[in-house]
């Protein structure tokens, strides 16, 4: 049973998990009526995208792209994973945090004005 699991490459697991997270996040954003839940859906989708990006940068049997005693400079290119997707994901995490912060502060404002966070009850604000 566990033998069968170890046959699956680790990056495929991360890739599939990331894609499932994206789908769950999208589902949450499309179906939920509560603003905080929509934001949670957004965050899930965000995390899924990060996982997919990191998985695509993985190189078989690779290690962290840090040159030290364990990863000598001469063999570095054959031992490490791709540093570029990692750097991109770091940027993406920070941007995701910024967007989440803005969304949450909008939620606070909406709650202060309407005393509810269910979007069905906010329709009168259109007028």
């Amino acid at each position: 049973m566990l033998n069968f699991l170890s046959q699956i490459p680790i990056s495929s697991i991360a890739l599939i998990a990331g894609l499932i997270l994206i789908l769950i996040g999208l589902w949450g954003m499309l179906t939920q009526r509560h603003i905080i839940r929509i934001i949670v859906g957004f965050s899930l989708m965000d995390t899924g995208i990060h996982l997919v990006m990191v998985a695509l940068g993985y190189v078989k049997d690779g290690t962290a792209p840090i040159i030290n005693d364990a990863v000598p400079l001469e063999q570095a290119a054959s031992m490490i994973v791709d540093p570029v997707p990692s750097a991109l994901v770091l940027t993406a995490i920070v941007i995701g945090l910024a967007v989440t912060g803005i969304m949450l502060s909008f939620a606070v404002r909406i709650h202060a004005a309407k005393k509810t966070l269910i979007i069905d009850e906010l329709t009168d604000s259109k007028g």
Partner: protein
Amino acid sequence: MIKRVFVFMMLALMAAMFFKLVANYQERDELSKLGTYYAEQAPAELGAANLVTSVIVTYRGLDTLGEVTVLFLAAAGVGLLLKPDNNANNGTVKPIHRPASEIVTTATELLLPMVILLGVYVFINGHLSPGGGFQGGAIIASGTMFLMLALPETHISRVMISFIESLSGFSYVIVGTLGVVLAGGFLDNRILPLGDYGTLFSAGAIPLIYVFVGLKVGFELSAILDRFRKQD
């Protein structure tokens, strides 16, 4: 009902799109050309042991400056949106803070200095070990969160926060501009000697830039947390 069908269709289309990606996915056996270039050239060129740091701070340094700008705009946006209303509830409804339990208070007193120290360690060693300015800043902000949980009435000086934040952001741009004058281009880290490879004082201006980024991110996130806390 019709909406549910649409949602289901959209998810199914997304899943079909992803299926293609998963089905054709094969684990890579070797680095991409760009990754190989960074692995072979970056340590000699920039002197940083952590390749991700080399990419973030120097090769794609302009992106990082943009990222810091986005974070700054987000902090400013949160500050603007959560600015206390002057006309609404003028002192009639005071938020009631339940005092924190003794466990939380004692743990905070014990751990807060260590959390801050860890944050500083993480951003100063960003060129040698996993971590860097953003991670260190986030750890410092978690220290602030700790403080707010244990002592909900703590007053955090907005003036001090914005002063340190602006100062470090300004210094970051100055260091970047010095790269144009003294070295190969904007945000070039070779304005300082590269030093002994693998030691704390190496990799030129990378530790310096990460100290500024770390301080800026740490205080910015603390300001955001403070904004969410204060509704009076």
